[in-house]
């Protein structure tokens, strides 16, 4: 049976929420920005007047001000955005129990089972848009289609506050003329590869031979070919259905540039503790550690290495991360941001090869004790002594400060 899938995208989400609370700013160019003092000063979202002046998401505040000296900047209030996101999902949940959020402002809804109750896909889309506007004061654009990929493409086609319908009869006219980069999972490098083979539009991709694409791009080639032909059959997940965690990581842009190994050690310890605590909370251990490093020129790289055995202890994670860092960084530039990630996860209860000479059996109870102390008395109630060397640099808590996690389409 053909499915009916909606993709709802809340337009200019952060900026719209801010404008709702300050209607006098609605007609002025406005950007929601990260905290410039903490060096997170980039544009996170902008409203339509700002968009018309050419302001782009991701550029620095000073770049945006060059285009528009009168730009209003508002610092982000994630608590508020999460609250509106929850309220939006509550509206969706009156139409289906299959709701898969994609970031904070987008979601797929599989309404196949509710068509007899609420009418066809486009009338449900209209009803959802109407309720978003009256109940939350936000506008959304909705794509209606029979698979998730086309639904997402549809929601990007007409903005703001519009519905786009893509069905099996019209997708060749609607989807195929679009540039291939619009397709989910065609990023810059895949796009360049495809263009080198004269694939410029989604239609070009769809008309190619799937086997040839597989030879050219690997498994991805065939997957993308399926996307372009509307053959994607990934289900929309149920509410509360957790995706399988593939890795646990934290990263941060430090409050000042990291100039030497001592600074890097501090940050790595903070990140490793957060990664370890999150692994423990999920009952997982990692067998591989990856670090990501970005210098002041915004050049970045990632390196990974295998651990001798599965672990969820911050000491092991930090040691491996430091080892990777020292083997791979030459200090030609100071560092702007660092990330530590534990990958190749296993469940903590599984049998493992013990080390004859490993005498550290009391470390795990120690780290669990720290977890419970922090749970009861706050994150900063107990810390490594080394953290006190530079309280400004280490004064962040990646485990709780971060509330919005990027997610992947392939769970």
């Amino acid at each position, binding site marked *: 049976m053909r499915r009916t899938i909606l993709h709802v995208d809340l337009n200019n989400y952060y900026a719209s929420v801010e404008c*709702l*609370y*300050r*209607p006098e700013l609605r007609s002025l160019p406005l950007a929601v920005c990260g905290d410039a003092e903490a060096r997170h000063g980039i544009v996170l979202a902008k409203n339509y007047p700002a968009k018309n002046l050419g302001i782009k998401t991701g550029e620095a505040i000073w770049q945006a001000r060059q285009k528009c000296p009168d730009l209003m900047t508002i610092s982000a209030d994630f608590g508020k955005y999460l609250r*509106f996101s929850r309220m939006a999902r509550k509206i969706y949940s009156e139409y289906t129990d299959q709701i898969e959020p994609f970031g904070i402002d987008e979601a797929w809804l599989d309404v196949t089972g509710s068509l007899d109750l609420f009418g066809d896909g486009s009338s449900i889309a209209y009803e959802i848009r109407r309720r978003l506007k*009256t*109940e*939350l004061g*936000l506008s959304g654009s909705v794509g209606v289609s029979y698979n998730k990929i086309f639904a997402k493409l549809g929601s990007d086609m007409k903005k703001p506050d519009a519905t786009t319908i893509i069905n099996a009869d019209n997708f060749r006219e609607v989807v195929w003329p679009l540039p291939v980069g619009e397709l989910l999972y065609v990023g810059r490098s895949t796009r360049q590869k495809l263009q080198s083979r004269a694939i410029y539009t989604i239609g070009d991709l769809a008309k190619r031979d799937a086997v040839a694409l597989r030879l050219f791009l690997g498994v991805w080639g065939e997957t993308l070919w399926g996307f372009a032909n509307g053959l994607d059959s990934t289900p929309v997940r149920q509410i509360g259905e957790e995706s399988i965690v593939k890795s646990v990581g934290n990263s941060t842009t430090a409050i000042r540039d990291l100039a030497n190994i001592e600074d890097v050690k501090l940050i790595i310890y903070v990140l490793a503790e957060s990664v370890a605590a999150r692994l423990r909370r999920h009952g997982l251990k990692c067998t591989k550690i990856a670090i990501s490093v970005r210098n002041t020129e915004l050049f970045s790289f990632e390196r990974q290495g295998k651990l001798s055995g599965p672990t969820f202890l911050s000491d092991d994670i930090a040691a491996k991360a430091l080892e990777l860092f020292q083997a791979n960084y030459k200090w030609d530039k100071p560092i702007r941001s660092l990330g530590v990630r534990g990958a190749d996860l296993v469940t903590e209860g599984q049998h493992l090869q013990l080390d004859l000479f490993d005498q550290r059996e009391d470390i795990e109870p120690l780290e669990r004790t720290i977890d419970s102390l922090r749970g009861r008395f706050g994150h900063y109630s107990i810390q490594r002594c080394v953290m006190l060397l530079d309280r400004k640099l280490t004064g962040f808590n990646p485990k709780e400060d971060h509330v919005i996690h990027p997610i992947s389409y392939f769970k």
Partner: protein
Amino acid sequence: MSKRYVEIIAEHNLEGKARPLSLKWSDGRVFDIDRIIDIRQAASLKAGGQGVRYTCRICGKEVYLFCDEGRWFLET
């Protein structure tokens, strides 16, 4: 149109729902809410904000009274 925060006297029932009984204007005058005509979640596009909207009749006039996470305001 502007947003006017007001003090409220309300009745909180066992289900956790609040029902405003009277409101206190900034100059100290107290107005009884004669009737609540409608209660729904809504955005206030005129005053700016969002919350539970109570359509109230006060002294023969219909006004929108919003409860935004415990803070009450009127569209005036």
